[in-house]
């Protein structure tokens, strides 16, 4: 975002990009870190790792969207 000139068109394009990729970011966040939690819980037998992983993934995905488009 920083390299390009800030024009209304570019802004609009960035916003559309961001809005469309939000669901897939959150879904991947859940899958990646929830999946990691699932693996951990299978390995250790501690079930709580799954919800922790899911929440962490969602938080990270939100943070990622903020970092990429929100600033």
């Amino acid at each position, binding site marked *: *975002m*920083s*390299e*390009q000139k800030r024009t209304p*068109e570019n802004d*609009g*394009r*960035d916003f*559309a*990009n961001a809005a*469309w*990729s939000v*669901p*897939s*970011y959150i*879904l*991947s*966040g859940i*899958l*990646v*870190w929830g999946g990691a939690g699932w693996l951990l819980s299978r390995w250790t037998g501690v079930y709580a790792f799954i919800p922790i992983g899911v929440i962490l*993934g969602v938080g*990270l*995905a939100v*943070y*990622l969207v903020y*970092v*990429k488009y929100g600033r």
Partner: protein
Amino acid sequence: MTPLVLVAGDEFQAPGPSIFNFPPLYEGAPAWLTKPVIFAVVGALLVCAFAWSAFAKPQLVPRGMQNIGEKGYEFVRDQVARPFLGKDAERWMPLLMSLFFLILLWNLFGVVPLIQIPIASHIAFPIVFAVVIYALRIYLGIKHQGPIGYFKNMMFPPGLPKPIYLLLSPIEFLSNMIIAPFTHAVRLFANMFAGHMLLAFFSSVGFWFLFERLTPLGSGLGVLGAVMTIAMTGFEMFIEFLQAFLFTLLAAMYIGGALHADH
């Protein structure tokens, strides 16, 4: 198979996902010769015929079909291509035009009497489009940004401390490489699938309670089903148009994102 065939016995049964399964057209036909396949081909040929009648001999002063064709062209160009591709819009118009018109016609088959099957409600068809766009996107990204630059631009948003990348990059990768094309295809599929299911449900309610088992108590329900069928048909036409538009728009967005790194 139409919804009414599903109605068996004395009790009303809501149509399920099995309404999307079609047997071969006639006894002894090969398994692939089903209604959606036939109409997929018919739709493709119709799109070609329509485009041919509109654009084969274009006049400076448009008349007849060319007027309609040009409206469609201008819609795709101004609403889809230009916002996301900017000056590259003209170059990608052929692909976007084909995508938009084919998907639109296939979707509209869902509300055409006797056809009544949105082709995209069979996930294979959206998958074909999504895979084409996905391959094109990766090819263009690597061509325009270099193999390393493409993945670097994609997975490492600048200006963050190093350990954060360890947490964020897998999300980026999964999102861009797997989830995005998946949702691209599934969005179209699911909308058509669910929309058609709703239509089938309401029309079977109407049919069951008004024709099969007409009772004083059930007739009200039947009328409601019939009215809802009409309303939902209008709504479905809108959704079908919207999904064709959105699929094309996302295709343009992915291509545009691959052409120049935007972050």
